[in-house]
């Protein structure tokens, strides 16, 4: 056993550490360097789902029911599979409309109804207080396990340590949950502390699990082997325990229940939606969080069975095995660490839950009442931010004290797990109104009222009331016999439905009533204009760009709006709000017009502080509003979608312009390259011509032979220059489509033969043999014979340039391929290196190396290819380096459309 001082000291030391972390997180947030802008910390903060109920209750449940502890964690797994859609949509809606609690969310969706917000708050408080009591009970029970049964049981409440824990936690929640009035209700320091707590409880639980599994036993298989030896334990890990067959309905109900709870519990809404820094983090958190749940559950069974084996069944309370096992084995420090782990599970839950509930109580209970009392009439009164904070602080304290009171009165009546499930079933009642409202435009306020009231009533009657009765506060007889002896109305067997266990039974009837009323009433009456407009804003939150419709018509005075904002936001924030709006509109603040957009903006900011419903009331109090009809809503929507249409058209036009500009830029680049190459090719012969001419000019005495050599060079370089100019012009004409084509029926066989004959002199000089391989006859094709001759001469002269000095061979073939004719010119020269094959048809890419390269402009092949292309054909190169090159082209006999050209008789381009 440990001394109370030690345990209390550790607990308060731990709280101090939390304070430090939260303080640091807040300070960093104030500096704009968020510590929690991180998907992993975000996921850890979701771990607030695991409370004392997980930490102590799961082991208890596993020790008595085997696998039954698991569905509560499988449900969240399934919910997380949809988080990227559902949670992200909730975050987006909450962000856009400054929604800070689940009550606000539902009320805002159904036309900013204050009554609906109050109803949701009421259900939350009633449902959550037992859950808070459960946490306090865990702290107290754990404490007793660690310090041993105290000699004199604590009777006086002021001597009860649990009370002081509750007070300390209230102090924490006040300090970091209501330090200042944040317009988005975000508390970075608190979230940082919560993420830390999640890590602590996970590590502590795993540490004890590992200690039990490998310290006390010899691995998981050892625990199981020993368990199997005990007949009353061996069936625990089967679905069909003892005689009763497995209750699949309850298993399914628990899965669905926890699936909804993980989205709808106030603390989950707080950490997932309200505290979300960046909605992209949801993507990763959605799988990290179930992973967290899996890890924290791995050792549940080993600890449960280890405890049962160690102490013997029925000897110790399984819910505190995690403490009693290390303690019984002398591992006191581990027991203390385990206690801190459980303590962190408790504190995390209590802090976030009370902050979330206090926001709801303040915004949806207290403020509307104060507004109704007229204490804050439209135009008088000063800054209200301090009052708001104080209301919240009081609410936090009140909720915790309510929980403590419940714990003192009813805490001993129930096992932890049962209390938790009652709370789960209560918040599950929000599902139809909230999820339906996010995806179904047709849901109305009447439907939401009906569903919530009906579901809550059935929940209270079938679940809450029997639990109260079982605690002995009211006679329990009606549970079995029904009220006034009407067995048909027996709360756990409504209408004689006795096949379901009490939880599934309650969940079934309450959700059935809830959904039926929600859908039925929604369909029965058409929504008001405000409900319809809010429905559109919620359901289509992802569809809108910057041009959201503002569903407001009326007149307001700028001064009134400024005064109102000043009172709820504080003068500094109010000024910033108007300055920003003025900057966006482009006029100075005093000249601002209180139009729909400004009114909407002010309303949203105030909503962040006091909730949407109260904000609506406040705006109504300072503006003369015109009631909106459904037609008005449609009209406004129409305007907005027109605007959106313009915006989209503009965006498309911009996109096209951008693309065109890119294209021009790249063409410009190409042209630049081309010009640069042409310049180079023109300047090179000019250099020789100018240099040699100047040398001769400077030296009249130059030897005749020298002078003769120079003049020869000048002439040949001049020829090269004019050839180049002609080819550049030729290419430019073909490329720009200005070339003239004189088409005729061409006999390609005759054309090839003529071209070979024309170059025979060239080949004879180089002692090159030319082999012709031509068919007897080929069909005529329609083309410009002069241009084709140009192509042939180019290919033949290229071949002549590259064949070896001695033993050069050139083979010319013509093939009739049915649809087309193919010509190839093969030489036995050095071939074209692989690296150059791809670029050989580009301009100014001359083959061969500079030393031996025969004169050429580097434009012959590009021009030839352009010509062949023009007639719908293709030109290509086949070459293996070292084994010669084969240039070939293929022309279709019936070019499809584009080829050919004008059959006029004008002079063709010079060449």
């Amino acid at each position, binding site marked *: 056993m440990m001394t109370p001082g030690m345990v209390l000291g550790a607990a308060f030391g731990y709280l101090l550490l939390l304070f430090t972390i939260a303080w640091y997180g807040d300070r960093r947030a104030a500096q704009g360097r968020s510590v929690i802008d991180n998907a992993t910390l975000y996921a850890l903060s979701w771990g607030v789902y695991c409370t004392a109920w997980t930490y102590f209750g799961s082991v208890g449940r596993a020790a008595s029911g085997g696998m039954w502890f698991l569905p509560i964690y499988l449900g969240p797994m399934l919910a997380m599979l949809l988080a990227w859609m559902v949670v992200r949509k909730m975050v987006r809606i909450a962000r856009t409309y400054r929604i800070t609690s689940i009550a606000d969310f539902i009320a805002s969706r159904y036309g900013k109804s204050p009554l609906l917000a109050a109803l949701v708050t009421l259900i939350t408080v009633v449902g959550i207080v037992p859950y808070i009591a459960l946490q306090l009970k865990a702290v107290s029970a754990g404490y007793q396990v660690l310090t041993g049964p105290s000699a004199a049981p604590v009777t006086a409440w002021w001597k009860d340590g649990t009370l002081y824990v509750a007070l300390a936690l209230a102090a924490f929640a006040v300090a970091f949950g209501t330090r200042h009035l944040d317009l988005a209700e975000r508390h970075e320091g608190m979230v940082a502390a919560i993420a830390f707590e999640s890590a602590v409880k996970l590590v502590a639980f795993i540490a004890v699990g590992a200690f039990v599994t490998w310290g006390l036993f010899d691995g998981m298989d050892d625990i199981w082997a020993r368990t199997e030896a005990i007949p009353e334990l061996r069936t625990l890990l089967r679905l069909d325990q003892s005689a009763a067959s497995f209750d699949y309905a309850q298993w399914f109900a628990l899965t669905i229940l926890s699936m909804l709870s993980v989205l709808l519990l106030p603390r989950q809404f707080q950490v997932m939606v309200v505290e979300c820094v960046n909605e992209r983090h949801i993507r990763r958190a959605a799988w990290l969080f179930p992973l967290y749940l899996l890890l924290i559950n791995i050792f549940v069974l080993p600890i449960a069975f280890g405890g049962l084996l160690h102490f013997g069944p029925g000897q110790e309370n399984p819910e505190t095995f995690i403490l009693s096992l290390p303690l019984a084995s002398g591992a006191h420090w581990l027991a203390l660490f385990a206690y801190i782990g459980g303590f962190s599970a408790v504190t995390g839950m209590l802090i976030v839950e009370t902050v979330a509930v206090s926001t709801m109580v303040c915004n949806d209970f207290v403020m509307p009442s104060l507004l109704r009392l007229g204490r804050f009439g439209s135009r008088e009164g000063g800054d209200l931010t301090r009052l708001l904070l104080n209301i919240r602080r009081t609410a936090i304290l009140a909720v915790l004290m309510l929980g403590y009171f419940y714990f003192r009165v009813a805490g001993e009546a129930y096992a932890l797990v049962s209390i938790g499930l009652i709370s789960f079933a209560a918040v599950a009642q929000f599902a139809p109104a909230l999820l339906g409202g996010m995806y179904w435009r047709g849901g109305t306020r009447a439907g939401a009222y009906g569903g919530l009231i009906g579901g809550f009533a059935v929940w209270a009657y079938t679940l809450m009331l029997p639990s109260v009765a079982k605690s002995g506060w009211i006679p329990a007889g009606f549970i079995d016999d029904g009220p006034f002896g009407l067995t048909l109305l027996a709360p756990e067997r409504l209408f004689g439905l006795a096949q379901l266990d009490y939880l599934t039974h309650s969940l079934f009837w309450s959700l059935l009533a809830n959904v039926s009323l929600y859908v039925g009433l929604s369909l029965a009456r058409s929504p008001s204009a405000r409900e319809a407009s809010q429905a559109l804003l919620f359901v289509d939150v992802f569809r809108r760009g910057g041009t959201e419709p503002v569903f407001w018509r009326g007149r307001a005075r700028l001064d009134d709006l400024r005064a109102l904002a000043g009172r709820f936001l504080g003068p500094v924030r109010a000024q910033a709000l108007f300055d920003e709006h003025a900057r966006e509109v482009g006029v100075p603040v005093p000249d601002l017009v209180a139009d729909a957009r400004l009114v909407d903006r002010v309303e949203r900011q105030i909503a962040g502080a006091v909730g949407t419903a109260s904000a609506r009331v406040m705006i109504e109090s300072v503006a003369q509003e015109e009631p909106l009809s459904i037609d008005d809503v449609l009209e406004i929507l129409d305007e907005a979608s027109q605007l959106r249409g313009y915006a989209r058209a503009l965006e498309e036009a911009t996109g096209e312009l951008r693309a065109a500009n890119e294209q021009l830029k790249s063409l410009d680049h190409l042209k630049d390259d081309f010009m*640069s190459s042409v*310049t*180079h*090719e023109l*300047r*090179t*012969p*000019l*250099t*020789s*011509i*100018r*240099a*040699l001419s*100047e*040398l001769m000019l*400077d*030296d009249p005495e130059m030897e005749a032979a*020298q002078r003769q*050599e*120079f003049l020869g*060079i000048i002439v*040949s*370089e001049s020829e090269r220059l004019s050839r180049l100019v002609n080819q550049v012009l030729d290419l430019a004409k073909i490329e720009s489509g200005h070339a003239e084509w004189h088409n005729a029926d061409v006999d390609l066989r005759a054309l090839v033969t003529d071209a070979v004959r024309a170059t025979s002199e060239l080949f004879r000089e180089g002692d090159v043999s030319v082999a012709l391989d031509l068919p007897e006859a080929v069909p005529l094709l329609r083309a410009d014979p002069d241009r084709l001759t140009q192509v042939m001469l180019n290919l033949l002269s290229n071949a002549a340039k590259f064949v070896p000095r001695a033993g050069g061979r050139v083979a010319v073939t013509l093939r009739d391929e049915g649809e087309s004719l193919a010509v190839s010119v093969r030489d036995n020269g050095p071939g074209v290196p692989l690296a150059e094959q791809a670029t050989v048809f580009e301009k100014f890419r001359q083959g061969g*190396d*500079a*030393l031996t390269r025969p004169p050429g402009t580097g434009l012959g092949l590009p021009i030839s290819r352009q010509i062949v292309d023009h007639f719908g054909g293709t030109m290509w190169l086949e070459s293996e380096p070292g084994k010669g090159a084969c240039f070939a082209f293929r022309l279709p006999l019936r070019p499809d459309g584009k080829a050919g050209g004008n059959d006029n008789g004008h002079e063709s381009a010079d060449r």
Partner: protein
Amino acid sequence: MGTKVLIADDEPNIVVSLSFMMKREGYEVLIARDGSEALAMIRAEKPRLVLLDAMMPGMTGFDVCEAVRADPEVRETRILMLTAKGRESDVARGLGAGADAYITKPFSTRDLAARVRDMLA
């Protein structure tokens, strides 16, 4: 024996004119027809000045220039870069590679001769 000047250019006719000029100025002329030959000759013959064409197949004038500046043996060789491309970016690149001067083709023979005299002075 006169000062050694290397002419590196892949255009034979330009080499003819340059070598005539350099000989007339009284230098001893060496000739290289591409970049790698030029580099090899610079290392072997250690000419005082190189007339280096920027655009040669294989190893370009820029590459040669960088290689010379990186080689402590021949780092002091004076380099006059010749180019037929007149773009600003080419001039910048040549000077960036470490050339001492830069002349565009076609050039004035008098200017070139004067430039070479200056650089060898």
